[in-house]
């Protein structure tokens, strides 16, 4: 009894509950996508014939793994962080030799009953290694040299996953900028990076005059806010006007110029299509060019058409949910298999269609509370290791959630990353479970100073 009490002591039960809720929602969603009314549920579950039954198995494994992590000493994680990182890199290299081809990317290692994706699991090792490095007493993160070393930690897995043709997963690693920012990386990098990404996406999605007006409005608003400062220091005004000019010129001239003259029309079309936007060239010659190039690159065309189809179907499914949704198992779109990959990358469509706006809103709210809870946990840590790690976890989950949901509702390109804890798949579920449970373990020992 006493032993049990010490184990559970300090564990953040809110995290555990949020975890359980999300995993349950995930199971329900996968079930609703796959289940057909004539089928025998029990037989499917015991026979492991369906994805939802396999997901149930993965949940079971995750619980076991999670319990083990809870029972592990926190020092174990700090001690093995560097070795783990090396192990993760070796795993990634191994895929080049024994990798299995799934959906066109050779990033999977077959492990009998399920396939492991090292790029996915390597997130854990990277997070731990990064925490370890930053928590070293000799590391002074204000120095550029340390910042560069931290960047190398991130860029190694990024380059490997790019080589494996997993662009989406590579991008995930850039979310480590968030803990780095917390540890003293100048915010300018973050702000510039985010703003630029926003601007490009907005340029593609929003009508150009509207966007120009919005940008101008923001600039005017900023000037209004900082009017007192401007009175004292005219250079602030200059900076704001400069940024405004830059943004508008990027939006009005740079992006169109790049689209028109630097990139091939088919590339532009592809970018547009990943957002579910139909690309209509300005002039006929460009259109003709596309037609000509289309003949050459049939495979690319097919892939593009598929991506466009995915986003359109996903938007139809979510949009048709309305405010209240169609009800559990009543979604015609998810039940009709219209959305491809709807049990993995597009699992959000089943929430959107079956439970409508209120359901989607609630899910977003659960994710948000999850993230805010992690941030709260991060800030109460005494050791830098735990804090960096916590922010790393928050950043990864944040990136996954926003990009995944944004891609299903047409706000982000389709880059094929999962919705944490909801999407079907052992690799993804296990990775997030381990990430979260290590955090829970570390948090339980928040009084300890770990290095």
């Amino acid at each position: 009894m006493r032993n049990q009490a010490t184990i559970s002591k300090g564990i953040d039960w809110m995290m555990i509950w949020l975890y359980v809720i999300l995993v349950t929602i995930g199971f329900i969603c996968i079930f609703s996508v796959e289940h057909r009314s004539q089928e025998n549920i029990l037989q499917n579950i015991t026979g492991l014939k369906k994805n939802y039954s396999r997901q149930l198995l993965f949940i079971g494994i995750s619980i076991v793994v999670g319990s083990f992590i809870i029972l592990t000493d926190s020092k174990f994680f700090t001690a093995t962080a560097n070795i783990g990182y090396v192990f993760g890199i070796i795993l990634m290299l191994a895929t080049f030799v024994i990798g299995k081809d799934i959906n066109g990317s050779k990033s999977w290692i077959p492990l009998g009953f399920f396939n492991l994706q090292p790029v996915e699991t390597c997130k854990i090792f990277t997070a731990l290694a990064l925490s370890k490095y930053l928590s070293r007493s000799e590391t002074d993160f204000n120095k550029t040299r340390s910042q560069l070393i931290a960047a190398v930690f991130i860029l190694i897995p990024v380059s490997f996953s790019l080589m494996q043709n997993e662009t989406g997963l590579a991008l995930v690693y850039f979310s480590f900028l968030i803990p780095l920012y917390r540890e003293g990386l100048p915010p300018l990098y973050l702000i510039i990076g985010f703003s630029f990404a926003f601007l490009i996406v907005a340029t593609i999605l929003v009508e150009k005059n509207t966007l120009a007006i919005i940008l101008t409005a923001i600039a005017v608003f900023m000037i209004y806010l900082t009017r007192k400062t401007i009175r004292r220091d005219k250079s602030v005004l200059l900076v704001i006007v400069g940024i405004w000019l830059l943004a508008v010129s990027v939006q009005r001239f740079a992006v169109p110029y790049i689209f028109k003259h630097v990139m091939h029309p088919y590339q532009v079309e592809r970018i547009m299509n990943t957002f579910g936007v139909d690309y209509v060239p300005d002039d006929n010659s460009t259109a003709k060019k596309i037609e000509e190039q289309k003949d050459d690159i049939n495979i690319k065309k097919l892939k593009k058409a598929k991506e466009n189809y995915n986003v359109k179907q996903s938007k139809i499914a979510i949009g048709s949910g309305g405010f209240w949704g169609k009800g559990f198992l009543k979604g015609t779109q998810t039940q009709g298999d219209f959305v491809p990959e709807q049990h993995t990358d597009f699992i959000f469509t089943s929430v959107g269609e079956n439970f409508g706006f209120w359901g989607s809103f609630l899910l977003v709210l659960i994710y948000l509370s999850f993230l805010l809870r992690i941030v709260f946990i991060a800030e109460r840590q005494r050791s830098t290791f735990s804090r960096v790690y916590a922010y790393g976890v928050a950043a990864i989950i944040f990136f996954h959630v926003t990009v995944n949901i944004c891609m299903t509702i047409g706000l982000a390109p389709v880059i094929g990353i999962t919705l944490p804890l909801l999407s079907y798949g052992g690799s993804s579920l296990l990775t997030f479970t381990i990430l979260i449970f290590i955090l829970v373990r570390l948090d339980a020992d928040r009084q300890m100073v770990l290095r």
Partner: protein
Amino acid sequence: MISLIFIAMCCIIVFQLFNLQVLNSKYSIMADEQGKFRKVIYPDRGILYDRKGRAILQNTIIYDLMVTPSKVKGLDTLALCKILNIDTAEFRKRIVTAIIKNKSYRASVFEALLSEEKIAKINESMYKFVPGFYLQERPVRDYPFDAGGNILGYLSEVDSSFLLRHAGEGYQIGDYAGKTGLERSYEKVLMGQRGIEFWKRDNKNRLTDRLENGKYDTAAVAGQNMHMALDIELQQLGEKLMENKLGSIVAVDPKSGGILAMISSPTFKPKLLTGSERKKHITELLLNPALPLLNRSVGASYSPGSTFKTLQALIGLHEGVITTKFIVTCTGAFYGCGSGNPMKCLDRGTFDLKNAITISDNTYFATVMQRIINNPKYPNVDSSLANWDRYIYAFGLGHKLGVDVPSEKRGNIPTPAYFNKTYGAGHWNYCTFRSVSIGQGEVDVTPIQVANEMAYIANKGWYIIPHIVDSIEGGDKFDMLSKFKEQHKAIDISDSVFETVHDGMQGVVERGTGMGAKVEGITICGKTGTVENYFRGVKQENHSFFCGFAPRENPKIAIMCVVENSGHFGGTYAAPIVGLMIEKYLKDSISDPKRKVQAEALSKLNLIPPRIYKELRTRDSIQHVKDSAYLIEKGFIKILKDTMGLEDDDNTDDLIKLKEAKQKEDQQKKKDSSLPKTNKSNTEATLPEEQKMPAVKDSSQ
């Protein structure tokens, strides 16, 4: 700061969700379009019963063998090939066609409309063929007696013009609707009410499940059953008697107007148009020069010949231009219009009205009509002819009766306007059209009109529009039967006038021209007709006509029969056929062995005119010329399409028009041989074209 980024991002997501799900409704419309399917459920069509409650048109189920190509792998296909009598090459070909037509994961028809024998064999070893193959039910029409094809009609797929005309009535492409016969005229009653089921549909266009367990579905309502006046046994006897002949029999119950039998010969076995070889059969039928798809009973018109004389008698008596004692002597011909080209009579002598009917004296009725037309009561021939027309219309001639069998023709009754147009006002008189007095020349009637006229005479002055359907189970919702309840009695002619005519008609059967119709123990009133006719300007063998009713005291059946181009006289062939029909109907069976022998002999007698065989040979030789361009040019191809033009014209009409066009050409060439002033605009499209040339020569019997 970091928390703010999280919150901001979530706000953007929620904003976009709100935009997609609440503000925008186009996505739910798109979702409904691709995710829901409105499945139409076809109810059973109504069943038709004859007057004794026997089902003569009902529904049955036949099976299509369906295949889902993606599930065929590893099945015992060889066994299936054996059952279906196909080789593996053919098997592969069908699978490939199915994949091309319908994708490999959707079911397609592998073999349609399987024979019973094949179904039995497949069922036996079905376990070898699942899940790649399955049998799909398909309801079809079934004809237990396989008779009455021309009356019952058949179904065919609706075409685009039909859909246009019946927009909003729930028809879709691929539906079937009645194309001819009762199937067509009672389509609304028989089709019932379609049900609708809402189904979920998946991305491969397969139906997966009922939407919300059928909450929005509407059930199908079966078509209404109908009871007919028709006696199927009488119909079968009539069809048998008319085998190897062209022509028609129509029998009507004079009291109710119900049609007891309606035979058009040659006819077709209705079962031919339901099975797997439907297309082949329909082509064969459409190309047959004897026009088996034409319902001659309502769609062909003939000069009535001497059967018309009874009507002249009625008019003469009622107008008072003659009395029953009126006597005319025939010295060999009718000289009332001078001696040029007189109408001959066969029996010389002096006759009163009764005897004139009995021996069918031409001179007598030429005189009667001359008196009607030249009646000083009327100022001119225009008004007296108009008055005569009034009677004829009242007898049900010269206009469509409104029978419930489609494609009825109007026939033709000459009017003053017609003669004014043809000859110019004032340039014609009785002598111009004297042949009308004996039912030749410009007068055309359909068999149903003649049968109805007999019912009129039998009822002594009224008729009910002939009809096949007596009642509809569950009520006459479309008000289709009320017109079959009222008596038509336009002119009040006294019973004594009718008695005189009845006397004459009884004499016809007892000692006159129609003795062939005599039946032991039944008083039959009848009238023969021997109709001269021409085809493409060439005189053909006479049509044999007989019409009558029985028994005289309490008429239960009014009947007419025409045998085209039979030669000889009306009494020769038509009279005995009518006699047998009356005996069958009134005595319920033909028991006398002698009579049975007579019926068999009549049935075997081949009276099809040689020109039909000639045309058949021509057609076959044309068919051998495989050049389809040639066929199209000849107009044969365009009438082959097996779809429907339901409103007024059907395929047979096309064929008729085609033929008429040809005939006109021919006539142009032969103009010299025919009489100069015969304008043919007086008729509607009438087939068998033969009777068209006004014969101002002799006609008798």
